[in-house]
């Protein structure tokens, strides 16, 4: 196939779609995200069904949630979405160094988000909001934790890609990988938008 003829030459426009393998990867990942939509949708549904089941004497969402932390986390993740867009733009211009730079910033922002989340969970546990406290707490930690695990996976993945591009350069094999990782990162951000809306803000309203 055409994969090899492009390997050494000039990078084509939209390198992620230059080969059939690349197009397959992008489409397959889109469909995977469709499945992930159902996965998170089901988690959200469970949370919605159980969010009032706090139990006697346990802290409610209204008492627990600190919107300041959530706002900072949101700001960090939204910004990382923008930096990952810049990374893909740099990739389309074949600016490898710039792309790696933006990806590194994305990873650092992701780590910051994760740190905030761990700190937040730690606080909650101290206030008596443990995983097995109530149906509300179980569904809360599972939903937000699943998202956190996705962020962690994304951080590891993008870090590996930075390393890989440094070794192999940008070509029609590595470009689709970077593009797909960028899609994944945006999707994580979309999920977070619903988490801060449905879990935190609506939880605060009651």
């Amino acid at each position, binding site marked *: 196939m055409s994969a090899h003829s492009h390997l050494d030459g000039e990078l084509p426009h939209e390198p992620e779609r230059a080969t059939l393998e690349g*197009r397959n990867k992008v*489409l397959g990942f889109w469909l995977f995200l469709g*499945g992930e939509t159902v996965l998170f949708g089901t988690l959200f549904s469970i949370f919605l069904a159980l969010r009032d089941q706090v139990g006697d004497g346990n802290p409610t969402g209204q008492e627990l949630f600190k919107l300041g932390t959530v706002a900072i986390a949101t700001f960090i993740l939204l910004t990382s979405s923008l930096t990952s867009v810049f990374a893909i733009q740099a990739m389309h211009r074949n600016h490898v160094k710039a792309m790696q730079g933006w990806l590194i910033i994305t990873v650092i922002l992701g780590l910051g988000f994760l740190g905030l989340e761990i700190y937040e969970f730690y606080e909650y546990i101290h206030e008596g909001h443990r*995983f*097995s406290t*109530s149906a509300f707490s179980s569904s809360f930690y599972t939903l937000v934790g699943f998202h956190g695990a996705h962020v962690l996976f994304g951080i590891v993945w993008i870090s590996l890609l930075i390393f890989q591009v440094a070794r192999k350069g940008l070509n029609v094999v590595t470009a689709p990988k970077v593009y797909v990782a960028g899609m994944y990162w945006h999707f994580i951000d979309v999920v977070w938008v619903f988490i801060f809306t449905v879990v935190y803000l609506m939880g605060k309203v009651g």
Partner: protein
Amino acid sequence: MAHAHPVKRYTGLMDWLTTVDHKKIGILYLIAGGFFFLIGGFEALLIRIQLWKPLNNFVSADTYNELLTMHGTTMIFLAAMPIIFALMNAIVPLQIGARDVAFPFVNALGFWTFLFGGLLLNVSWIAGAVPDAGWTSYLPLADPTYSPGKGVDFYVLGLQIAGIGTLVGGINFLVTIINMRAPGMSFMRMPMFTWSAFITSALILFAFPALTVGLVALMFDRLFSANFFNVSGGGNTVLWEHIFWIFGHPEVYILILPAFGIISEVISTFSRKRLFGYSSMVFATVLIGFLGFMVWAHHMFTVGLGPVANALFSIATMLIAVPTGIKIFNWIFTMWGGSIRFTAANLFAVGFVPTFVMGGVTGVMLAAAPADFQYHDSYFVVAHFHYVIVGGLVLGLFSGLHYWWPKIFGRMLSEGLGKLTFWTFYIGFHLTFFVQHFLGLLGMPRRVYTYLDGLGFNSMNLISTIGAFLMGIGTIIFIINIIVTAAKPKTASNDPWEDGRTLEWSIPSPAPEYNFLQTPLVRGYDALWKEKMDGNTGMSPAEPIGPIHMPSGSILPFIMSFGLFVAGFGFMYANNEWTGFVKEIFASHAVAGLGLGITLTCMIIRSLKDDHGFHIEPEELTKKEVKE
């Protein structure tokens, strides 16, 4: 080509462990699915022996619960779905004129995760802790209080791992069908089996994540004391039923749609006629898939969701009879006026039609919510779903296997033995399940290990048991047929049925590893038939003969799935009654971590190591073609 990579080829067992060839993976699916089919069938026979007379004590009540749980779970997830995947792998790329699937590596991964998940589930027999909460694993029965052993954990983790395999397999087929069709093979020229594989894969993609979440929640409840379904902690048991059936109902269509596809191909071929109403057939398939997501609560009419919900789901369920009816009529009209040949494959296909209609009719009866209060949890339901799954899917699979056997293995199955399989299996099937309708209407409850004398159940249960053994004999005849056939030379021609209509019959049997020497140019629906009618001997090529790029094999899918298997054990036995060192490494989650570590390491290796594959050069290709 300038890039001549050294060809690393495995042979023997290693070839099968490392293969990424969709045709070989199809055979692996068939062997594994067939193996689990025999296990599930054996469990069914034990159930029927227990029920052949009132107050029998062939097995204990506990064992009976385990048998019925494992029979259902094994047959649905480990037998039916893999054999569907076997046919999809073996045939779909050939039908669309593709050299390969979109993700050969992921395809292999899907097979091995399914296999290890299935093995994990069945290891429960050896571990002496068998799931016994039914294949639906309803709460609170399946919660730690009422199912304290490891049994349900085996169910949860086994299905979780097998489910990953199914999900990635589904994505692979969606992308294959969307992106890899040969020139001219538009969507509305795709054979019906490919269409049904497409819709089934879409249903897998959108239904399985719901099961994943449900199983995760159940696992957290059981292993980490979460409260999703624990009523005293504020949980809700009906939530499990909802999630299970939001997955479970599409799952039913995941099973039956490929059978519809197979029947369409077989009936059309052996009637020597174009499939009647092709576009309405496509439309009906899509509509069934779509409606499949909106009817789950018809499994829950007696829960008490209220008249509005019950009425809505009742109507939605009855609506599905419309597209299904379209299909039934289309098959009948395809046969109408055709020159029909009753080969073994076609016998199964023709036998399918009335049997499936019966299953559909009882389905509509069950869809009437008020009536369902009478049928619920009785043998009427058992009869209904066996009519659609065995009388529908299994007959369809038998038909497909007889039809495509020469394309998969290069040898024709014996027609005589095939017909014998059909008659024993078909008569046995109706004997077993037809009487169960009446047992249900008389009030015999399902899932109970025995019944009292004098209720009028005795003779019908005896008939049912005799029928089950006849089905067993039919299956054994099929296995004998396979063994006898395997001993014969590979003599099947490209188009052994002589009336082949679709692309897979334009290439040698079995298909060479690159499928198509030259990508074919498709000029219409029933691509090969069109060429035949125009007086051509085969497909016209869309490209000159050139080097063909192939992906290289890899052991990583196998190891990756093995890692998940180890992790499953690790999580399950973190809480154990052993002593000493073994207790410690499990209790500290070291085993679980090790398993996940193996899987993650394989993923990283896969990402970092480029697979350049290899090329088969034109000289090599033409030499092969001449030889075959």
